[in-house]
């Protein structure tokens, strides 16, 4: 009875998460030369040389990132559908989570568009103006953390209220989501530092804080697949009882 299967497209939505991750790592991180990001402490002239040397790779990387960005929203919708099953009587957190995923998607779009603009005019604009545009994109990218904080906190709060004996999402994953979301408040400090651990390329700000987004997404992707499996089993069992 596939025509009455409420989980028919859930597999596609769930796979959007891992595909987004692969696209982001390849496009934004590797081709975009963001492992780690370019240091804000270096001179405009050094920056111009960096952009001109890597112009086409960065352009291609950011185009890939902007192309895969909607997959994040699709994955967020899969999470919302699971959250609606975890708390069947109240979908406020599920809705907030989806809006958070949607606005986070914009955080992937706008800065990447600006970075493409920087590479596009690297041959004709002055170095200081280009670096200003590049920095502005970073401010949007890191300091615009609040939508993802809202998304991850809604994720955690909702799944913690799952009344099942074995919840759809393990409680430690729910708490981890809340912690990762709250820990992004550290990004508020990024605009104050051009070097050191709290600069955008610093040990704390990039290698720990920023990477938490990706690590949590990996964990959440795995458990989204597991939750869909549990929901399908519940649905099949309820169908068997009804029959």
């Amino acid at each position, binding site marked *: 009875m596939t025509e009455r299967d409420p989980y028919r497209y859930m597999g596609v939505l769930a796979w959007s998460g891992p595909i987004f991750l692969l696209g982001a790592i390849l496009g934004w991180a590797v081709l975009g030369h963001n492992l780690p990001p370019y240091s804000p402490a270096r001179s405009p002239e050094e920056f111009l040389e960096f952009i001109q040397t890597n112009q086409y790779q960065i352009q291609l990387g950011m185009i890939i990132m902007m192309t895969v960005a909607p997959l994040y929203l699709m994955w967020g919708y899969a999470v919302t559908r699971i959250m609606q099953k975890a708390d069947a009587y109240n979908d406020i957190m599920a809705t907030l989570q989806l809006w958070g995923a949607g606005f986070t998607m914009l955080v992937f779009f706008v800065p990447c568009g600006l970075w493409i603009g920087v590479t596009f005019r690297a041959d004709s604009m002055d170095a200081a103006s280009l670096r200003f545009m590049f920095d502005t994109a970073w401010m949007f990218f890191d300091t615009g953390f609040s939508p993802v904080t809202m998304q991850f906190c809604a994720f955690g709060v909702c799944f*913690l209220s799952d009344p099942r*004996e074995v919840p759809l999402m*393990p*409680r*430690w*994953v*729910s*708490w*981890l989501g*809340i*912690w*990762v979301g*709250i*820990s992004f*408040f*550290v990004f508020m*400090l990024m605009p*104050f*530092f051009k070097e*050191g*651990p*709290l600069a955008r390329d610093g*040990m*704390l700000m990039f290698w*720990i804080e920023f990477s938490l987004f990706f690590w949590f997404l990996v964990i959440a992707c795995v458990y989204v697949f597991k939750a869909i499996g549990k929901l399908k089993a519940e649905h099949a069992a309820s169908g068997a009882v009804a029959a």
Partner: protein
Amino acid sequence: MQSGTAADRASVNFPSIWAFILADCFSFAILFTIVMTERIGQSDLFDKAARHLDAQLGLVNTLILITGSWLVALAVVAARRGDGAGARKWLLAAIAVSSAFGAIKLYEYSAKIGAGFTPITNDFFTYYYMLTGLHFLHYIGGMAALIALVFNLDFSKVSETSVLRWIVSVGIFWHMVDLLWLFIYPMLYLLPLI
């Protein structure tokens, strides 16, 4: 009286909030390491700047947080006994005492900013506002959780696993707020006095 299955008891004795606590302590440990490393490189500047902090106010805040933690611990003990009214009373006392920490901290921030010491004054004050600010966010979260417990939890059902688990979980979080301050206070306020 704690009842229920072995899984229920485990969820109360070792609630899942520990995942949050361990991750948070890990991130603060990294922040502490960064601050202490910076301190080694600029010990004169850090010592000189830290003398502008009020160690006595810091001590008062330390005592307030310890007292608040003790009151929360009494609430957990009462809840485990099945005494819902007692648990609620101790939580209210903890909120009343701990609110003084926020008032003193806000006074301290306004006094420092009024005297011209802002996050961009020097590296010491950058880290001072960073550490105490992040701690203050945790304090606000903890106070909000305590208030939510007092006004939203059904204390007549304190023997039920889900109710008891919330009290224990918030209690653990509050102790972490206390513990973090016990590292921050000597690191920022007391080291230059030694």
